[in-house]
C-alpha cells in the first residue's frame, strides 16, 4: 500500500522511518534531558527549549521534493530536531558550547547562518549544529544504532526567531519567488532586529559592568558616591550596616534578633531624598543616638526579647522623618511604603508620634 504515491526508494525510506520512530523518541528524551540539565546548571536564561520528531506528512513532503538525494534515512539529519531560543547573542554561543561539550558535532554539515551574510545583506540568523549522541554519554543496548543517528540543533535569539517565524508564516522563500520589495522589507527588518539584538547585549553588559563596579566600591567601603539603587543597596546590606544599632537596641532587653528583609527600605530611603549610599551613612550617623533613644522609650518598660532586624533602620527612618518635619503624615507614608496602604498604618503613625514626643529634638 502506497497512499502517498511515492517512488519505491522513497517508500523504503518512509518504512525505515516508521520502524525507527521508537528509537528517535528515545533519542529525543535523552538529548533533551542532558541538554536541559546543563543549560540549567550554566544559568543561561532561555526563552524556550523545544524539540520535535518530524511528522510523517512532513517527511513525505521532503521525500517528494528531494527524496532522490538520500541513500538511507540516516542521511536526513532533521528527523529529530531541537531548538533553543535565548535572549542574547552571547547566550547562543554559550548554548553552542554546551552542545559541543555534550555531543559529537558533524562540523561538515553544521552551519552558522549568522556568518553567511554578505556585509551588505541581512536575513536569517541562526546557528545549526548537526549532532550525534556519543556512546560515552548514553548507550542503550536495545537501540545500538541510536548513537549513529544525526539530529539537528538550532540555536538563535528570540528576535532572530521572531524574524524566522514570521518569514516562514508569510511563505517567503527567496527573492526569486518573491517580488523584490518584499525581500527588501524583510531584509530591512532583519537588519533592524540584528541591531536590536546587539543593543540588548550592549545594555546587559553595561548593567553588569555597573553592578560589578558598584559592588566593588561598596565592598571596599568606598561608598560615598555610590548611587542608591536596588543593586547597590543589596550589596550595602551585605556589609550589615545596621547591625551595630540593632545589637545596641537588642541589648535593652537582651533580645534575640530575627532576620528580616530590609530591601523595602531602599524605596523609603529614596523617598527621603537619599541619592547615594554616602547619604545613607550620614543619615545613620546623624540619627543613631536618637534612633536608639526611641527604641529605649519603646522597649525599656517591656520584657520583649525578640526583635526583627528591621528595627534599627525603621527607627532611623522615623527619626529622620521627624527631624525633617515630616510629622505624622511622613511616618504614615513610610509605613504605607513598607506595609502597603492600609488603615493600620495611620494607627501605627499615631503610636510612633506618642512615643517620639519624649525625644529631645521634638521639644526644641
Amino acid at each position, binding site marked *: 500500500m502506497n497512499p502517498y504515491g511515492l517512488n519505491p526508494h522513497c517508500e523504503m525510506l518512509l518504512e525505515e522511518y516508521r520502524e525507527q520512530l521508537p528509537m528517535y523518541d528515545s533519542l529525543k528524551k535523552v538529548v533533551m534531558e542532558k541538554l536541559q540539565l546543563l543549560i540549567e546548571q550554566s544559568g543561561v536564561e532561555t526563552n524556550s527549549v523545544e524539540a520535535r520528531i518530524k511528522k510523517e506528512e512532513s517527511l513525505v513532503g521532503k521525500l517528494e521534493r528531494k527524496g532522490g538525494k538520500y541513500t538511507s534515512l540516516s542521511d536526513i539529519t532533521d528527523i529529530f530536531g531541537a531548538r533553543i531560543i535565548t535572549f542574547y547573542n552571547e547566550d547562543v554561543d554559550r548554548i553552542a558550547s554546551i552542545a559541543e561539550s555534550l555531543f559529537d558535532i558533524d562540523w561538515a554539515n553544521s552551519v552558522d547562518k549568522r556568518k553567511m551574510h554578505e556585509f551588505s545583506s541581512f536575513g536569517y540568523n541562526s546557528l545549526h549544529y548537526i549532532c550525534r549522541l556519543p556512546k560515552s554519554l548514553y548507550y542503550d543496548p536495545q537501540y545500538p544504532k541510536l548513537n549513529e543517528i544525526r539530529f539537528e540543533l538550532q540555536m538563535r535569539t528570540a528576535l532572530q526567531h521572531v524574524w524566522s517565524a514570521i518569514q516562514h508564516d508569510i511563505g517567503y522563500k527567496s527573492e526569486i519567488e518573491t517580488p523584490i520589495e518584499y525581500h527588501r522589507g524583510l531584509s530591512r527588518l532583519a537588519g533592524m532586529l540584528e541591531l536590536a539584538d546587539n543593543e540588548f547585549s550592549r545594555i546587559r553588559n553595561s548593567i553588569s559592568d555597573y553592578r560589578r563596579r558598584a559592588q566593588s566600591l561598596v565592598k571596599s567601603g568606598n561608598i560615598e558616591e555610590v548611587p542608591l539603587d536596588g543593586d547597590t543597596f543589596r550589596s550595602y546590606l551585605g556589609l550589615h550596616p545596621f547591625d551595630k544599632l540593632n545589637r545596641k537596641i537588642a541589648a535593652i532587653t537582651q*533580645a534575640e534578633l*530575627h532576620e*528580616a*528583609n530590609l530591601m*523595602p527600605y531602599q524605596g523609603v530611603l529614596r523617598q527621603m531624598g537619599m541619592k547615594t549610599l554616602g547619604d545613607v551613612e550620614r543619615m545613620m550617623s546623624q540619627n543613631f543616638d536618637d534612633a536608639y533613644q526611641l*527604641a529605649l522609650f*519603646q*522597649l525599656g518598660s*517591656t*520584657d*520583649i*526579647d*525578640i*526583635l*526583627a*532586624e*528591621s*528595627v534599627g533602620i*525603621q527607627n532611623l527612618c522615623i527619626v529622620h522623618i521627624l527631624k525633617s518635619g515630616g510629622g505624622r503624615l511622613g511616618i504614615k507614608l513610610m*509605613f504605607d511604603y*513598607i*506595609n502597603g496602604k*492600609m488603615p*493600620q498604618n495611620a*494607627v*501605627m503613625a499615631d*503610636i*510612633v508620634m506618642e512615643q517620639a514626643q519624649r525625644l529631645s529634638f521634638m521639644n526644641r
Partner: protein
Amino acid sequence: MIFDIKEQNGGMYATVSGRLDTPAAVKAQQEITPLLENADKVITLDCTSLEYISSSGLRLFLTIRKEAAAKGGKVVIEHINDEIKKVFMMTGFFNLFEIR
C-alpha cells in the same frame, strides 16, 4: 484553647484568642500542628479576640511563618488590636508578616 483551627477556602483559618503569654504559648505549640502541616497554603490568623502577645507568642507566630516560607505558603494576620500593633511596630515584626 488559643488556636481554633479550621480549613476555609482552600487555606487554613485560625481564630487566636485570649492571652498568648509564655505558658499559653507552650501549650499552643501542640495546637498549631495542623497549621505547620498545611503550611504550603495560605494561613490566616484572625486575632480579633487576641488580647495580649508575649515574646513567646511572637516566636510561635514566627514558627508558623518559617514553616510557610519553607513550604511555599504564607501567613496573613488579621484584626490585631492597637496594643498588639504597638508590639509589632516596636519589634519590627510588622515587616515580617502580611497584616490586614
